[in-house]
């Protein structure tokens, strides 16, 4: 089977985020970009399906800082083909990307038809869309999102997926192929690949590029970010300082004053 995985880079929020001088966007120069976490799970799920059922995995990603590293890493992990979408505006929103992907999927040889298109169930930067249902909508394919388990039924030409709801309840759906699945978690944590293997992939494999012909307005003009700030102050926690022992003592005082040391005993 042929599985396409859409990967996206997002700011690494472990690093300090800086707001650009204009005040309504992140300072792109100050960012470290990493692969969106649920996209990493989507890639892992695709690789597991390939190991189980054979076939090939194509990874597709919009151009972004560090995206080559992410694509070579995907190749080193076992993806067969990597394509970078170029010519996109840096301020492109998720909704705009949905339109761009439709064009790239239609115009790049060997991409469609695919049996499955996987992508992360969500990215924390997607202000104006969840990408998986939009891709399905543009491609006219069935979709289920927030999925944490995928199994293929080769005879039926379908996949059975588990979609997460709330309170730990999940629901099982059968999706005819081809289809689009938004992955929340792969069956297993994403695999680790040694740096040496990534370097080897950089030497022996290639990243293809696919340009987007004409980027029609993909909803970008429909919303405007008028300001950004780092939330703080309001309702901020009272911070406790000192050695671990001093802080532990303070916390004990707080718990005791609230009767929590007795009550929860």
């Amino acid at each position: 089977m042929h599985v396409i995985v859409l990967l996206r880079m997002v700011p690494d929020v472990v690093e300090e985020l800086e707001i650009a001088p204009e005040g309504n966007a992140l300072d792109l120069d100050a960012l470290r970009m990493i692969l969106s976490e649920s996209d990493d799970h989507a890639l892992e799920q695709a690789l597991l399906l390939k190991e189980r059922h054979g076939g090939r995995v194509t990874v597709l990603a919009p151009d972004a800082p560090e995206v080559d590293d992410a694509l070579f890493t995907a190749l080193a992990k076992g993806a067969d083909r990597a394509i970078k979408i170029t010519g996109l505006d840096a301020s492109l929103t998720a909704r705009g990307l949905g339109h761009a992907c439709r064009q790239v999927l239609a115009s790049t040889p060997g991409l469609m038809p695919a049996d499955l298109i996987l992508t992360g169930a969500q990215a924390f930067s997607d202000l104006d869309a969840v990408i998986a249902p939009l891709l399905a909508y543009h491609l006219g394919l069935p979709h289920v999102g927030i999925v944490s388990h995928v199994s293929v039924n080769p005879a039926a030409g379908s996949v059975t997926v588990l979609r997460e709801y709330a309170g730990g309840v999940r629901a099982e759906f059968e999706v005819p192929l081809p289809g689009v699945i938004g992955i929340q978690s792969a069956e297993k944590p994403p695999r680790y690949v040694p740096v040496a293997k990534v370097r080897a992939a950089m030497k022996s494999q290639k990243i293809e590029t696919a340009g987007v012909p004409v980027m029609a307005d993909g909803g970008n003009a429909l919303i405007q970010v008028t300001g950004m700030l780092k939330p703080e102050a309001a309702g901020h926690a009272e911070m406790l300082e000192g050695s671990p022992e001093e802080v532990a003592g303070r916390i004990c005082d707080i718990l005791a004053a609230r009767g929590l040391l007795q009550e929860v005993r």
Partner: protein
Amino acid sequence: MEGGIWVLAEQWRGRLSDVTYELLALGRELADGLGVPLQAVLLGQGVKELAGTLGAADAVLYADHAGLNSSLPEPFAEALAQLATSRKPRAILIPLTNVSAGIGSLLGERLQVPIVNFCKEVLLKDGRMEAQCVLYGGKIEASIVASCEPVIFGILSGGRPAEKGRSAAVPAVEEAAVDLPASPVLFKRFVEPEAGDVDLGAQDALVGVGRGIQSQDNLELAENLAQALGGAVCGSRPVVDQGWLPLARQVGKSGLTVKPKLYVAAGISGAPEHAEGMREAGLIIAINSDPGAPIFNLAHYGVVGDALDLLPALSEAIQARKG
């Protein structure tokens, strides 16, 4: 009724979610501020009687269809698009939950109108709706305005107390027809969570662990503290995805919502997905090495430091107090 504020009443497995009432409370403020009616939109099959609890709205629009029986976004977006095309609401508020995820995106594309996700607040400024959104896992808040109406707002839970959106009033219910295609996706069954070894909801004290716990071996430190407090250990999604804790111990959007008297968040950043499950705890004490972690906006007390140092110190101090 044209030009109203709409709230999608989220019903799942025949029950209305609390977030529905939170959105009605927010919708009421917007509707009153704009001088327009507030309408709840209830979609499903055989759930008309649920409309009776939506009295905070001026009216309920109800569509009954077999296609609205399974909670997938496509039929709900299609139904809303059909209803909105003729009735022209000014805004449509949709819960940003696992149940309703994706509806707003599809509806926005279908109607070619603006959509704003991750809203924790929608305000009126000079008669214009402005959303305040939580981005990048809670690290950034952005103000967003839309260039045309209707605007679709995907609203995070917890913005208003649900109680503010409940009313004993009996709303007028208008039934509307929708025409939905058969879904190619087949619902098979619900999979109930496996009963965990502990009932998280019954604990007075919970020690929540996140990525900052670094390895499964370090869970012992959290277990020791939980034991000293007479409570249990739970975790955020990354810890469960790693297989360090079972699914039954996950707190947050896909997992459980807990309200213990004490919640110690150890190495948890406090992204909205986790916050949703624990923000109602009586006392929240957060330990995180990142002073900018959003958990500190939620916690009552915070400690910037390594949870691996503080957890054992705290366990020891509590044991010493208890003698």
